[in-house]
Each structure stands twice: as C-alpha cells, then as structure tokens.
C-alpha cells in the first residue's frame, strides 16, 4: 500500500502570487496571494500574510489580512490579530476577541434544530396573551420529537408492507419482526 505523504505548502513573506491557486494540501500564507484559492484542506493566513481574493476551502484560520469572501466546508476562525473584509459562509465560525471583521456571515443548516436545546419560535402577535411560553417540542406544529416506538418513517421502503409498524431495513441484519402480525413482504 503506497504511503500518502502529507505535505504543507508555505508561501513565504516575499512571495506574491496572482491568478488562480488550487490545493489539496494545507497552505500557510505568509506572503501575498492575489489568486482565487480553491482548497480541499486548510488555509492558514499568518500575521504577515495578505490574501486579496475569494477562497473556497475546507477550513481557514485568519491571523493576517484578507479582502475577499471565504466559503468553508468545515470551519473558519478569525484569530485575535486577524482582519477580514468580506463574506463568510461556513457551518462553524469562531471570532476571537480583538479580531476585526466586516461583512456578511451565513451558515448552512442554520435552521437545523439543536440536539440539546428545544427550538424556540417567537410569537410576536400573542406576546401579551395569557399562558406560559410555548416551546416547539410541546406544540402541535413543531418538529415532532423522535420517539423510539414511532410509526413508519417517510423514508422510501423498497417493498410493500401491510403491517402497521414498519422498521427501516438495515442491511445485513436479520429481518426485523414488526410488533403486529400481518402480511409482510420481505423488505430486502
């Protein structure tokens, strides 16, 4: 089995790159990159570094100056000495105290309910109404909590099933017996 060597590119302080840059390895920027960056790994913009371009990356840590938009698959962190003007789009964003940022922030999956906290919905018209605050997991029209004995899921079942309770097929396992007896075609 061929051993994959993990490399890191370091762009030194006197280097200026213009144009387009594509990378499948971590990139440390200490110089000036005026090239559109597309990377499947991390971009680390160090204090002396400057990026004047948009970047589409896996993750980024900004300690230098960047004018451009960053779209990251995983995470963007703006360090205390980081300065950014541009838009950020990432599922996880950390801005440290001292960082300077100006731009738009968007997060994919923003609306997804947290696993821990109940989803809170403001009810502007009824704020003065009597009654305790309504939390989504108690309301009728909120997202129904997942209970262990929940009836059929919406997921596509490969075959027809007559019994009332359906368990999604799990490849490789024994066919699951439903609680109720009834005619049932094999799901797989």
């Amino acid at each position, binding site marked *: 089995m061929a051993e994959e060597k993990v490399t890191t590119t370091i762009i030194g302080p006197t280097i200026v790159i213009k144009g387009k840059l594509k990378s499948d390895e971590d990139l440390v920027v200490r110089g000036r990159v005026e090239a559109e960056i597309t990377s499947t790994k991390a971009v680390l913009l160090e204090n002396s570094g400057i990026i004047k371009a948009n970047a589409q990356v896996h993750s980024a840590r900004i300690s230098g100056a960047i004018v451009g938009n960053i779209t990251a698959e995983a995470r963007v962190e703006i360090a205390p000495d980081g300065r950014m003007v541009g838009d950020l789009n990432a599922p996880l964003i950390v801005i440290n105290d001292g960082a300077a940022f*100006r731009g*738009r922030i968007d997060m994919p999956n923003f609306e997804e309910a*947290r696993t821990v906290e109940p989803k809170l919905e403001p009810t502007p018209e009824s704020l003065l109404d009597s009654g305790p*605050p309504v939390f989504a997991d108690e309301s009728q029209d909120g997202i129904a909590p997942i209970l262990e004995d929940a009836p059929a899921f919406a997921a596509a079942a490969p075959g027809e099933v007559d019994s009332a309770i359906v368990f999604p097929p799990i490849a490789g396992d024994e066919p699951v017996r439903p609680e109720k007896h009834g005619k049932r075609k094999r799901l797989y």
Partner: protein
Amino acid sequence: MTPGVIGKGIRIKGELRGEEDLAVEGRVEGTIALKHNHLIVENSAVITADVDVQNITIKGEMRGNTAASDKVEISTEAKVIGDIRAPRIVMEEGARFRGVVEMDVKLPPGLL
C-alpha cells in the same frame, strides 16, 4: 451592580430602556436601549428587537440589529439573526449567526 432580571415567564412588547445591567430570560419584542450597560440574553430568552447597548452577551435567540459601543459576545448556544455594529465581537464555536457585521477594519495600506 447586580443586573435586573426579566424572568422566563415574562413577555414584554414595546420600548425597554434602562440605566442598569439587565439579564433577559423571557421574551422581549420591540426595542432595547441600555446605552451604558450590559445586556445578557440568557439561554431561554427570545428577543425580537433592535438593541442599543454598551455590551451584550447573547446566549439565547435574537432577531434584530445590535449596536454596541463596546463588545458583542455571541455564545455557543446562541441563535442570532440581524446586523451587528460594534468595535469588538466575539463569536464562540457553534454559535449560529446570520447577518452583516460592521466593524472598523484596519487593513495594510493599499489593500482595499
């Protein structure tokens, strides 16, 4: 200064103004002005308001624009929609935010 508290069961609609630190655990809709103080939006709070403060710590849900003369802190559990203008901003990992952030950014000469 012990902050004032707006409890979980309280809902306010209108203009909220004050000269003391305030922790909100309930719901506020309208505007909040605590220009020289610290506003804490607790975990259970739901704020639908524009806010003008010195400092704000958001741990709950907020929809509205924030203007802070000192610092905005958005905690991990927070969910914020709206624009922010402040000289200092801290966003913890996991915080959910959508909006425009306006800060003074000092860039190296000739960059912008």
